[in-house]
């Protein structure tokens, strides 16, 4: 479920520029340069370690959704395109991706790209990999990502065995060119191509996909070395890598931690170099402990509370009631106190850092005002039953803020509010899928690709996979359809912005806050930055000598 890697290589480029001006190349260790003293000297072959958990799945690109696996897969594989921090597309393995009608895309590959086993990356490497991943027989959890491509139903039928092994929409033209035909035009399809699912696979993969998941051979900046289960995963910089995000370090050790508290202790005692997140227990002290090595940075994810629209309570609700509830939540105070500054109050449905993000789209609707909240709820006919509950998973650290949100609502409007705790994430998901949520549930969304469509279509379209609340609005669906049919990306993004404005009137969810990365790193490394999905950008990290 972790999506794009975003600004990875651009940040990398900045580091390159800095290194070039400051010390004239960090690879030779030329100590005679005076400027170097300020930045310290770096070891281009130095290795550093990152905190992760044990990846749940084999390391196959189309099978890795959870964060522990995707950070490793992201290091080993590279896709056709990537995006910079402003959300602009950047060519990586592709020389160009062209389209005239948003339906047929022609991909030209850069020459000289190699897999880690030395075989060349060709058009065939992509087409075959995607056909394999889309095939339902191969049980890849991310296979639905290929559903935009014409002929997907042939390899991934709803029931039974696939009729074909190849999608009709993918055609190899020559060794470095292939075409993708979609079943319907999608102006922002090129953005999806930066997701790990769309990685190429080497020929050796198909001989034994299971073994390949244990010892992946990719085309990315890092080469796989070893996976000592539950202990560590080692990758080393790939010398023949020609992409723009060549590693500034010698390699990475992904060290396995079962909880964030122990990882933080190890960071303090120098046993791990880069953390992805600080445990809640250490949040109050980590800035003092780490000084300028403490990281506090927004990334593209949003948390909301979502009414279960299939319940009697919310079935025909007047959106003004939901707007009223939204105005009853004191986001500023809760993010500052209960969440200790680890979140930022939301002002819209689309997270920051995404193409098409609009500042303050919700306007007053997201501002705390008890009087207005009461008035809106009254105008909308009141909350049915005058009582709501918020379902959350008790194992995810949500209890505190759910209670705070409930307290805020009750205090402001007199509507009774309780937390509805499920033992763990699985039980929470179960209730959502079975449509057994009693009133509202906690929803969270991390970007897959940095376009506002990802936060609108994939969550609130009537038939979207991410729509588990039963929200359905003909108007929103119409706007989404219109935006998807737009002739260009810019217009599509604009139309999606209109859809977001309309969503404020319909309130398919009550957005609460945007996420932030609260992490840190050791004094052994520098150049540590975090991408839009919240993961550290590995290739730009430099190891001090």
């Amino acid at each position, binding site marked *: *479920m972790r999506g794009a890697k975003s600004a990875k290589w651009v940040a990398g480029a900045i580091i390159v520029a800095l290194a070039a001006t400051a010390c004239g190349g960090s690879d030779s260790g030329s100590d005679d340069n005076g400027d170097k003293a300020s930045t310290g000297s770096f070891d281009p072959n130095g290795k550093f370690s990152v905190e992760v958990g*044990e*990846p*749940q*799945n*084999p390391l196959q690109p189309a099978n890795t*959704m*959870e964060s522990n696996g995707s950070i490793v897969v992201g290091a080993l594989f590279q896709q056709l395109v990537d995006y910079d921090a402003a959300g602009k597309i950047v060519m990586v393995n592709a020389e160009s991706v062209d389209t005239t009608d948003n339906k047929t895309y022609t991909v030209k590959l850069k020459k000289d790209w190699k897999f880690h086993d030395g075989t060349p990356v060709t058009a065939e490497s992509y087409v075959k990999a995607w056909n394999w991943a889309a095939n*339902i*027989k191969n*049980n*890849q*959890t991310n*296979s*639905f990502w290929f559903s935009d491509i014409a002929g997907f139903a042939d390899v*991934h*039928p*709803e*029931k039974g065995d696939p009729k074909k092994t190849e999608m009709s929409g993918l055609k190899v033209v020559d060794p470095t060119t292939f075409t993708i035909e979609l079943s319907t035009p999608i102006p922002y399809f090129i953005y999806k191509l930066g997701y790990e699912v769309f990685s190429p696979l080497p020929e050796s993969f198909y001989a034994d996909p*299971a073994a390949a*998941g244990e010892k992946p051979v990719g085309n990315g900046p890092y080469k796989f070395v070893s996976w*000592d*289960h*539950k*202990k*560590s995963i080692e990758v080393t910089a790939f010398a023949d890598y020609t992409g723009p995000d060549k590693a500034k370090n010698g390699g990475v050790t992904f*060290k*396995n*931690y*079962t*909880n964030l508290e*122990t*990882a933080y*202790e*190890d960071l*303090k*005692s120098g*046993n791990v170099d880069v953390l992805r997140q600080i445990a809640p227990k250490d949040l109050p002290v980590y800035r003092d402990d780490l000084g300028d090595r403490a990281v506090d940075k927004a990334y593209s994810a949003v948390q909301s509370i979502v009414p279960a629209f299939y319940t009697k309570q919310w079935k025909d609700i007047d959106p003004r009631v939901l707007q009223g509830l939204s105005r009853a939540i004191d986001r500023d105070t809760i993010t500052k106190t209960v969440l200790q500054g680890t979140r930022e109050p939301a002002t819209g449905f689309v997270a920051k850092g995404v193409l098409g993000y609009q500042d303050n789209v919700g306007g007053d609707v997201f501002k705390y005002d008890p009087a207005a909240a009461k008035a809106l709820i009254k105008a909308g006919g009141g909350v049915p039953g005058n009582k709501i509950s918020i379902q959350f998973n008790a*194992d995810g650290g949500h209890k505190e803020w759910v209670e705070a949100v409930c307290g805020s609502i009750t205090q402001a409007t007199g509507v009774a509010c309780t937390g509805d705790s*499920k*033992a*763990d*994430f*699985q*039980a929470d*998901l*179960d*209730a959502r*899928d079975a449509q057994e949520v009693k009133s509202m549930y906690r*929803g*969270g*969304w991390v970007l897959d690709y940095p376009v506002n469509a990802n936060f609108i279509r*994939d969550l609130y379209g009537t038939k*979207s*996979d*991410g*729509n*588990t609340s039963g929200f359905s609005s003909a108007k929103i669906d119409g706007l989404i359809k219109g935006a998807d049919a737009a002739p260009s990306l810019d217009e599509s993004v604009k139309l999606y912005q209109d859809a977001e404005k309309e969503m404020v009137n319909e309130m398919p969810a009550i957005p609460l806050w945007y996420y932030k990365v609260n992490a840190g790193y050791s004094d052994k490394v520098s150049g540590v930055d975090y991408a839009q999905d919240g993961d550290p950008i590995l290739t730009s990290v430099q190891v001090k000598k």
Partner: protein
Amino acid sequence: MGRYVARRLLQMIPVFIGTTLLIFLMVYALPGDPVRALFGDKGADPATVARIRHDLGLDQPILVQYWHYLTGLLQGDFGTQIASQRPVTDVLGEAFPVTIRLAVLAFVIELVFGIGLGIIAGMRAGRLADSAVLVFTLLMISVPVFVLGFIFKTVFAFQLGWTDPNVSGEANWGELVMPAVVLAGLSLAYVARLTRTSIAENLRADYMRTAVAKGLPRRRVIGVHLMRNSMIPVVTFLGTDIGALMGGAIITEGLFNIHGVGGTIFESIKRREGTTLVGLVTVLVLVYLATSLIVDLLYAVLDPRIRYA
């Protein structure tokens, strides 16, 4: 003796089947579908979910699943993990060596210090040493494990810098000493108290007076007559505690980032990895059965009046 052991071994079969079935049913009863959970927050594609469930045999009735599991088990096949698609035997093979090392260390600490303190307190019942041991064991019993772990880390790792706060991937013996002390803490206190009571009581027993009256040397009176009789309740406790040390280390393992059985059990429950969980518990059941058999046999050694036909 041989017949007794044979009978006990045969009794293990129904116990074994019963416990595995029970765990199997319990995992099955938990809400949440492990296959659906592979897809996380975002919606799952129902066709893929159905396909994976079918391939794993999860769409069959629970008793059929259990039967397949049991027949597999008899051939040494512990099944496959749902998410990672790795054989459960591999997962067990990683988890157990670490936990066994930890448990052995903890057991030795518990044995040496527990019995040692118990003897000191018991021999001097009512005097200062006894009171000191009582206070110490009371502390160990009442302080929660994670508090103890935290204190140890703060003092030994952060302030004194003698050791790293956490255990590395290798989990060497040296690194495991601190976690082992924490893990052994609670049981150590129980062992000390059991030993103390038993010794203090037996000191007044008739056979002790007889032994002293016979003019036996003090070392023999205490070493053989007193110890042997006082150890019976302690051995019972130590026996069952081996199992507890193996399986009950969830908190300690979590505290020190040890990737052993405790953490694996916790993770398997969270991810609803039924086969992994049953596999782990199966091994633990075997450990319990084996240690309780050894304890029963030790009784006969300690007290010749207890004889097994």
